[in-house]
């Protein structure tokens, strides 16, 4: 049901997700690569040779060397005949060039017709839905199951084996795959809000199909067509091999002809086979390149996890010690310093809130602690200690054991955090069996105890269920129970309540608070919502563009904020205590992109108090160890903008 998927939410493209989080906007330069351009060059060469076949200075492909004496039978490749001679002394080069035209004509006509007809059917089925969709889909399924080869043999015996007959048959059998992929793409597009927006504006159906849907289908269809083109050429070759070829010189026919002599004169079959192979490869590579254009991926430029810098020991005995942590992501757009000099300590039973907007690096801090990243090229520098274990430099088994036994993770979306195909019991007992050394029975008892602990009613029944049978709040309770399985000292919660309703949110926050007190667990609560940290954390760190810009006791941050960003963030939140229609004081602009950060304070471009120094010099952390900040104008009330009062 549409409204359900809408509620579940934030459908975004892969690019939107990672790129958006890193603040990478604008064009992501998609490099098509050398292979793509070499393929284009090869295809262009074929087209050129095919078009100008008659005027090229080559021998007549039908001239037989046994009569003209110019080329000998099975002559090897050389200066006289570059690709050697055929069974009757034909110039193989000429014949291969003669084979270009039928290959390209067949490929082009078949692909164009099949793509057009198939796309039209696919759009019709995907957009109209209902009965039209059912009928079209059934027709596609039948057509896909139809034995094309049998059809070809039957038709061929009646209508002969002209290029036309092949074109018609290839087209008919080529339509269903296009119809199928276009239908799928249309169904996905029609779910997007921009189609609803166009409908709301009174756009006609025709307009929606041609102006809204079609432009988004062109690239996927082209990409598929390039591969379809290759399939057509390959099919012709295969048929020729079976002796079902067109009545012209084709590559397939040349290969079939040469296979008899493959031992004595391999070049007769191998050279046309190579040409055909290269052509098919070229079309496939072009198709892949076009597909990458439609769904660009943020790919790491370096594929390794690196660690730099020195380990700095903690003073005292914090359970979590993070000192001068720098995390750099190596993306195609450049090196992104997602976490830039983050320092904090957390004692047993203490709760730290990390607050920031998208791209501030708050989630990346958690990822840096556990060493899990969304892309492969990451360098970490600085210190992360969990219960005294150096998470950056310790041997891998020790790090894994520490992750399994000392750290619990709770993520934003409980539905994706749980495996949809496995029962709750398996998911909750597995870490206890792997890391805790319990047997199945002990693990099950412990699971029941944990589920009662996190407030799940009827835990025996829930253990046998699958994630989709649980409500959002119950699922999040299950992920918390899993996180608690091995009695961790540190619980890392990344936006644990953002996907939940407000009444459920307060239950989950209360639960986290209780667990922390009862089990004296340290808690890191990452959120975009300032209100969430109030009342549920002891200290708050405010992050902006990779920096912790302010850090201190929660109540003090709320009552006496120092950094201009913190102050502005608090002012801009709609306040329940203010009367309705109160003018909100805004922070102009949006958070900066982490690529090519300007010098100076990262908030300077949006700060009403920024002066020359703020734009030139990055403020170092100042204040007290209890309450620190990076700001040249700490605590100064920004002037109220004029002319906007109501």
């Amino acid at each position, binding site marked *: *049901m*549409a*409204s359900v998927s*809408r*509620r579940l939410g*934030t*459908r*975004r493209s892969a690019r*939107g997700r990672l790129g*958006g989080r890193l603040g990478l*906007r604008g*064009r992501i330069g998609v490099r098509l690569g050398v292979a793509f351009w070499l393929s284009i060059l090869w295809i262009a060469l074929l087209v050129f040779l095919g078009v100008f076949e008659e005027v090229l200075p080559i021998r007549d492909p039908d001239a037989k060397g046994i009569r003209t004496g110019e080329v000998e039978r099975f002559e090897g490749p050389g200066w006289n005949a570059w690709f050697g001679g055929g069974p009757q002394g034909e110039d193989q080069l000429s014949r291969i060039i003669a084979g270009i035209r039928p290959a390209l004509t067949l490929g082009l006509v078949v692909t164009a017709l099949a793509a057009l007809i198939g796309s039209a059917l696919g759009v019709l089925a995907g957009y109209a839905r209902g009965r039209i969709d059912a009928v079209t889909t059934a027709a596609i399924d039948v057509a896909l199951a139809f034995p094309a080869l049998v059809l070809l043999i039957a038709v061929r015996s009646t209508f002969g084996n002209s290029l036309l007959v092949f074109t018609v048959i290839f087209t008919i059998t080529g339509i269903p795959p296009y119809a199928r992929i276009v239908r799928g793409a249309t169904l996905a597009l029609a779910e*997007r*809000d*921009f189609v*609803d*927006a*166009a*409908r*709301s*504006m*009174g*756009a006609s159906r025709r*307009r929606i199909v041609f*102006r809204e849907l079609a*432009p*988004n289908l*062109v690239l996927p269809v082209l990409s598929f067509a390039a591969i379809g083109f290759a399939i057509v050429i390959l099919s012709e070759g295969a048929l020729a091999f079976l002796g079902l070829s067109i009545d012209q010189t084709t590559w397939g026919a040349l290969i079939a002809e040469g296979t008899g002599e493959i031992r004595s004169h391999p070049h007769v079959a191998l050279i046309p086979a190579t040409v055909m192979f290269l052509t098919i490869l070229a079309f496939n590579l072009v198709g892949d390149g076009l597909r990458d254009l439609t769904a660009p991926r943020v790919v790491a430029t370096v594929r390794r996890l690196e660690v730099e810098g020195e380990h700095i020991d903690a003073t005292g005995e914090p359970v979590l010690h993070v000192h001068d942590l720098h995390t750099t992501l190596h993306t195609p757009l450049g090196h992104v310093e997602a976490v830039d000099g983050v320092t904090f300590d957390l004692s047993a039973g203490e709760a730290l809130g990390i607050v920031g*907007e*998208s791209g501030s690096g708050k989630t990346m801090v958690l990822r840096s602690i556990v060493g899990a990243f969304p892309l492969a090229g990451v360098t970490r520098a600085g210190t992360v200690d969990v219960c005294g274990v150096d998470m950056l430099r310790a041997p891998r088994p020790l790090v894994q054991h520490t992750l399994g036994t000392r750290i619990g993770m709770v993520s934003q979306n409980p539905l994706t955090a749980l495996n949809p195909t496995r029962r709750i019991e398996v998911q909750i007992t597995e870490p206890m069996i792997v890391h805790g050394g319990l047997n199945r029975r002990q693990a099950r008892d412990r699971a029941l105890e944990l589920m009662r602990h996190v407030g799940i009613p009827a835990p025996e029944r829930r253990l046998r269920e699958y994630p989709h049978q649980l*409500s959002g709040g*119950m699922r999040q309770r299950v992920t918390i129970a899993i996180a608690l399985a091995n009695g961790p000292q540190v619980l890392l919660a990344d936006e644990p309540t953002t996907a939940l*309703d*407000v*009444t*459920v949110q*307060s*239950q989950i926050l*209360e639960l986290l608070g209780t667990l922390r007190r009862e089990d004296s667990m340290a808690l890191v609560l990452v959120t*975009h*919502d300032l*209100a*969430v940290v*109030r*009342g549920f954390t002891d200290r708050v760190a405010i992050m902006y563009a990779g920096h912790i810009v302010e850090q201190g006791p929660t109540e003090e941050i709320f009552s006496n904020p120092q950094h201009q960003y913190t102050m502005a*963030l608090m002012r*801009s939140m*709609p*306040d*329940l205590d*203010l009367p*309705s*229609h109160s*003018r*909100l*004081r*805004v*922070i102009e602009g*949006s*958070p900066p992109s982490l690529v090519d950060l300007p010098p100076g304070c990262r908030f300077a471009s949006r700060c009403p108090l920024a002066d020359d120094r703020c734009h030139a010099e990055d403020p170092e952390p100042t204040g007290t160890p209890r309450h620190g900040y990076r700001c040249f104008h700490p605590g100064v009330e920004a002037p109220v903008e004029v002319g906007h009062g109501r």
Partner: protein
Amino acid sequence: MAGSGRAMLRDDAILQVRDLVVEFPGPRGSVVHAVSGVSFDLREGETLGVVGESGCGKTTTGRALMQLVPVTRGEVELHGEELTGATGETLRHLRRSMQMIFQDPVSSLNPSRRLRDIVREGLEIWGDPAGGFGDSRVADIMVAVGLGGDIGDRRPHEFSGGQCQRICIARALVMDPEVLILDEPVSALDVSVQAQILNLLEDIKARFGLTMLFISHDLAVVKNVSDRVMVMYLGKVCEVASPDVLYEEPRHPYTRALLASIPGHRLNLPPASELISGELPSPLDPPSGCRFRTRCPRATEVCVTEEPVLRAVAEDHFVACHHT
């Protein structure tokens, strides 16, 4: 909870919704009761905030107004003209005076089109209502929503979420609508950007004389923008009042639970855990009588058998509960 009833309808409203019912086919022949007999109205220049949790039917209500989902029963009248059941050309024309802003601004923009074409779309469909001055009007609107500079050639992915929402608002304004339906317009935005868009909405409302239906799960946001607030639960209306009254003296048990759940609130309410228990019932099989009774601390026998109807408890304050 609550209930049906039309006690809060007024005579001078431009948009009237009466007993709106939206049902979807569910699995194995069952029926999803998304909206079950909701009535409300909008006066000219008024903003009605619709608030509730997921599954309360607030989004479906907005989409049903736009006729983006089929209405099972009930009436939606704009200036006395019936919108439900309209199809084809009639519907195309009726939709012009209402426009919708969606939650995900990125998904609301066609990724393969340029900003200029996206914003001009309304003019291309309908021609310029002012006759010939289309481009200057588009330029005015772009400035009004804060999209300055030479950006017409760019495509949606080159803009941030906040800018995309401004583009969506500009596109809707070009249609010169009377009513703007906003479905969670700031939920996908960063905190610092939310305030920009909320202020912008207040500005354009005044400048273009708009009437708004503002749908959100965020009680603080709804309070800020609304002239009247309607609280929904499981397809029914619980309570309707002006925001200052509603937040000061919530009367419906669900409204009280909702407000008490806001982290860090300073309202005079007991803890949320004392006001609400259990889980949201399935919309496939909603409870008899009051739909909130399964989670309500005050529920009694009458709540099981009888559905409470909205009634006035004070001037311009309506509650659907047997126990207030």
